[in-house]
């Protein structure tokens, strides 16, 4: 962002008087990306979705479903809690939730960084496709279900069936794991993983020691139906 843009006063949307449509419409203008403040979100859905420019969006309060959905380039910070599917299918940029997130946080996200300051509910990082998610608290059941690429970092505990039907995503958990899902196993933490985790914690501004985490990944036993019969399926 240029110095002149930084100096410009932020745009302000009050969602008690302005519509979500007006907000998103403005955020879809690729020119004039800068700081945007959103007040009184009052749990509304689809706030700051589909941005494709380096906006810096600050949302003061709780948001509903799909906040910052399919984000590209922008930084979206929520000073509150998030409903279902925050940063779903994010492509790039950063989404920071200071409170907790509901189900399917970061679902299918393909790039960028999602940070959840509190806990994330069930299916955090479901079908993850390349983005990184760092949760300071704990995550609910079936987190990283069918996750394909990217990393899920959990500083607290993980619920039942972590990483069920996992593909190539990497899971790092500091606390207890209630149970592992099908084909998900604990794996050795090598130097490359410690390095990766250190970088992720730093990017998320989380003060934690990578050595306290364990790594989980796919056993790759479900990748093919039954190899003996591969020619006849």
């Amino acid at each position: 962002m240029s110095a002149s843009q930084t100096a410009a006063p932020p745009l302000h949307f009050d969602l008690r008087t302005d519509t979500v449509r007006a907000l998103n419409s403005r955020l879809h203008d690729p020119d004039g990306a800068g700081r945007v403040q959103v007040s009184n979100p009052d749990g509304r859905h689809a706030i700051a979705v589909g941005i494709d420019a380096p906006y810096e969006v600050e949302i003061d309060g709780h948001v509903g479903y799909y906040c910052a959905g399919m984000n590209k380039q922008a930084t979206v910070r929520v000073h509150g809690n998030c409903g279902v599917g925050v940063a779903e299918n994010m492509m790039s940029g950063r989404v920071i939730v200071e409170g907790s997130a509901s189900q399917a946080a970061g679902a299918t996200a393909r790039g960028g960084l999602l940070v959840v300051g509190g806990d994330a509910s069930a299916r955090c990082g479901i079908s993850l496709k390349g983005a990184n998610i760092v949760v300071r608290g704990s995550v609910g059941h079936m987190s990283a279900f069918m996750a394909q690429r990217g990393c899920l970092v959990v500083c607290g505990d993980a619920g039942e069936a972590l990483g069920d039907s996992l593909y190539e995503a990497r899971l790092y958990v500091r606390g207890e794991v209630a149970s592992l899902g099908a084909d998900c196993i604990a794996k050795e933490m090598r130097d490359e993983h410690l390095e990766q985790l250190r970088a992720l914690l730093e990017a998320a501004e989380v003060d934690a020691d990578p050595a306290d985490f364990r790594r989980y990944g796919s056993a790759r036993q479900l990748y093919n139906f039954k190899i003996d019969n591969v020619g006849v399926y």
Partner: protein
Amino acid sequence: MATTESGGTVLATGRQVAPSLRESATFDRNVIAEIQRAAREGMYDIRGFGAKRRVPNFDDLLFLGASVSRYPLEGYRERCATDVTIGTRFASEPIHLDIPITIAGMSFGALSGNAKEALGRGASEVGTSTTTGDGGMTPEEREHSNKLIYQLLPSRYGMNPDDLRRADAIEVVIGQGAKPGGGGMLLGHKISDRVAAMRDLPKGIDQRSACRHPDWTGPDDLEIKIEELREITDWRIPIYIKVGATRTYYDVALAVKAGADAIVLDGMQGGTAATQEVFIEHVGIPILAAIPQAVESLMELDMHRKVQLIVSGGIRTGADVAKALALGADAVAIGVGALIALGDNAPEHEAEYERIGSSSGFYDDWQAGLDPAGISTQEPELEARLDPVLGGRRLANYLRTLTLECQTLARACGKSHVHNLEPEDLCALTIEAAAMARVPLAGTSWIPGVNGI
């Protein structure tokens, strides 16, 4: 197989079977072969194509045509329009199609790049749309399809906001007729480097798509999901909801409530590139039975013709198209028929079909990636056999034929637009079809379940 003069059976091999040998109706040769295969392999059968069993279908309906009280239109001289506009409810840029026949969603991955290109070329030539599939949008199909529908599926493979904004409409896929309640399948040998990269998966694995969407559950969530998609695309493009034909009356009502511009309804005869045979043949209802339920639901909500209804699953001829429209659909979608038009199951490949244990007219191993016609494959040598320009021309010819046939029937019923066809123009040949389609049994006024018993 044929019957000899003495009542015996001639097998495909030419061998004659004595009349004293009786085949079981319960354990026929297909059943016996399947039990033997299951015992050998210990795995369900996965295949492509669609349901092969006979179910009540459009062949069980007839048009009444003109009579003393209904005058027909002159073929070629009097206008019979075929255009349809989809997405008039909320989208600021609805889709205008020249013909009421669209190309159903089929993925790059299931199909070769040349096949996708040929579909785009053929559809664009006659002014209709094609649809992506469970694998994302390729630049090639965007380039060759003037009107491209972008599917949002449970797997979300390749999903990205740039393609959403590049699309002419979005189709939220809840299910498909071949497998309502099941997710997509793409077996390892069809996962090339490019397919793997588009789906963010390792090469060569058996890819089983999720069957439920990852970030919403149920109709109330769906409404919010659609709101998000509208916001991302600035309320510009139509949003369709695709469902497999099951609890159609309720699904259609819920799709309308969730904010759909259009509903895509796929009957159990709908095609697939790879699904368990047990799923293909045993889940879902025939499209004939589903259309009247959908139309009833739309009419009760005063949404018929406002939320457009696109039906698919076993549409083969212009007669099928006309009958679907007469029952109340706004348009149809074709998949299997389009692939056959491109060259699938063509007799010129007979020797190769036999080499892989099949025969032209029977080939359904679309999951295997060995398609001699170069359609359901990712092998470059096989794909090269399908000339996308020639394939596109064949598809355009087929679509024109379907349209002409549909117009011929509409004119015979005196209709100046194919959408003016109505159930009153139809009768049924069987009691089952009469009950499902809710039109009278031929020669009677009896509609089982509606009047009489």
